[in-house]
């Protein structure tokens, strides 16, 4: 049903003797939410860092739409259409909410090496930033400095910036961690809506959220893939339950 946009072939990342990511082969499809779950230290974030170009793989290959992007620097990966949000809030605290989104939108211009026309006169950037602002539900906070927004709002801002980049692939690293339940509902609905025409890779610890949005699940442990499958297959996989789901408590999952 889905066509593969992004894939990895035996990708590994070692720090000294430790293999943080160990021979991961995965395909990510357009129109799907592919969730990666696993205990802390399983290598999920490192794996995302490899996909986004922020860290270079030790071995293996990453292919995006037929192009080898394994060793491209982060800014080039981003320009190709792979955008990410961060586990640790990563914004411009001194700038207003609007300007944060604006910078993200401006990155989609052919070049920002333009020196005379004021940035605010670029109507297409304005329009794209406005769209991202509205989609993320932050419209009424647009003039507030990002540092004065609540933690949950800052997380929403991360996603708004991601949207303004108009990526084809969204790498979401714990997008709803620390959000209030009303904020996380907005984001989960947004992820569902975006999933229709985007490829989404989601790392999340909140199992309710994961099972609410994921089309495919991969469970990682110690840098390796433990299992990949449809949500109901993962729920009933005894190995996964022992390694990971079990410790989170069976209640929310079996319910």
């Amino acid at each position, binding site marked *: 049903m889905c066509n593969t946009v992004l894939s990895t072939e035996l990708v590994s990342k070692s720090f000294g003797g430790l293999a943080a990511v160990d021979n991961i082969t995965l395909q990510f499809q357009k129109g799907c939410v592919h969730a990666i779950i696993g205990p802390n230290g399983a290598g999920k974030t490192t794996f995302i860092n490899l996909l986004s170009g922020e860290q270079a793989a030790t071995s293996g290959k990453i292919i995006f739409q037929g192009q080898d992007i394994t060793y491209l620097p982060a800014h080039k990966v981003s320009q190709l259409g792979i955008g990410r949000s*961060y586990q640790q809030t*990563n914004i411009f605290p001194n700038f207003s909410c609007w300007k944060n989104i604006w*910078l993200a939108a401006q990155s989609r211009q052919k070049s920002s*090496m*333009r*020196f005379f*026309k*004021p*940035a605010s006169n670029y109507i297409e950037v304005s329009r794209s930033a406005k769209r991202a602002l509205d989609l993320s539900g932050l419209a009424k906070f647009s003039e507030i400095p990002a540092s004065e927004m609540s933690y949950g709002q800052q997380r929403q801002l991360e996603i708004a910036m991601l949207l303004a980049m108009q990526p084809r692939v969204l790498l979401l690293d714990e997008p709803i961690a620390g959000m209030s339940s009303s904020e996380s509902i907005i984001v989960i609905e947004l992820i569902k809506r975006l999933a229709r025409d985007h490829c989404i890779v989601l790392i999340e610890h909140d199992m309710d959220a994961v099972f609410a949005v994921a089309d495919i699940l991969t469970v990682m442990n110690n840098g390796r893939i433990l299992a990949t499958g449809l949500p109901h297959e993962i729920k009933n996989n005894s190995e996964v339950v022992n390694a990971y789901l079990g410790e989170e408590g069976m209640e929310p999952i079996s319910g």
Partner: protein
Amino acid sequence: MVTVPSRNVAICLFVILLCFASVPLFGDKYFVKLALRAIIFSIFAMSLDLLIGYTGLVSFGHAAFFGLGAYIVHLVSPVDESLNLFICLSLTLGLTAVAASIIGAFSVRTKGVYFIMVTLAFAQMMFYFFFNWPGAGGSDGAFIFFKPALKFGDLTVIDLDDGHTLYFFSLFAWVACYILLIFVLRSPFGQVIQGIKINEHRMQGLGYDTYLYKLVSFVIAGTIAGFAGFLFACIDGFVSPGLLGWRESGIAMVMVILGGQGTLFGALLGSVGFHGMEEIFREPAITGVIAEHWQILMGIFVICVVLFLKNGLSALITRFDSKAGEDV
């Protein structure tokens, strides 16, 4: 982030510039020269503010471009006649831009304290090059016998040998550089460098090749510093290796911090404050026996400004701004 001057800042700047413009009418020769030095150093410091205050690059070797600009005037001026102003200025700006591209290409790769060290090392290399090169006067420095001028046949339009012409030319240059930098900071490019200052890692994630933007910012700043050097060389028609040394880099940095980084116009306040205070502290009639050791008083002054004003002397003006007018 104050980019476009608020109404208060614009009024203050206008008054300060009017005062500067009236100096040649009332002041004696010494005072005119002092004011001229303050203007030229303000251009130099303003270019450094683009790096420190807006791009987050703390350069400790910015005098390399200031001194180079001055030396280029000496090197390209013939000994028996004055060189065309436009040719001389183009050569100065062009060559300092080339030097800034080369030095920037290496130093912008580094960050934080390493960037400070690399820029300092490049500037000291340039210092010793001119210090030891007999062709440019070596450690004694060198004279510029005929300063650049703009002439059409017998008609002299601009002659920088004339003190008042140089004075108003420099004042005009300050306004031009200030307006130019405001345009640059409002542009998409300006937004990118300001983003880099706050969170470079995030800018890369957004898809900006931050190395390139930092390099271009470094080249713009270096070229403007070279322009300031060009003007400085015309004051006395004398250049010396000290212009490239780390003392000058340090003075520019003190002016930026004294005036308030990330404000542009703060460089003017910093330069005026620095030169003005130096004159006051050195005057035995005012400071008595300490006059000989005026640097001690200057140190106390700088420390007080940094401790008690949130963003240097510029805070004296911007504290009256409404908050809404600040973000542009």
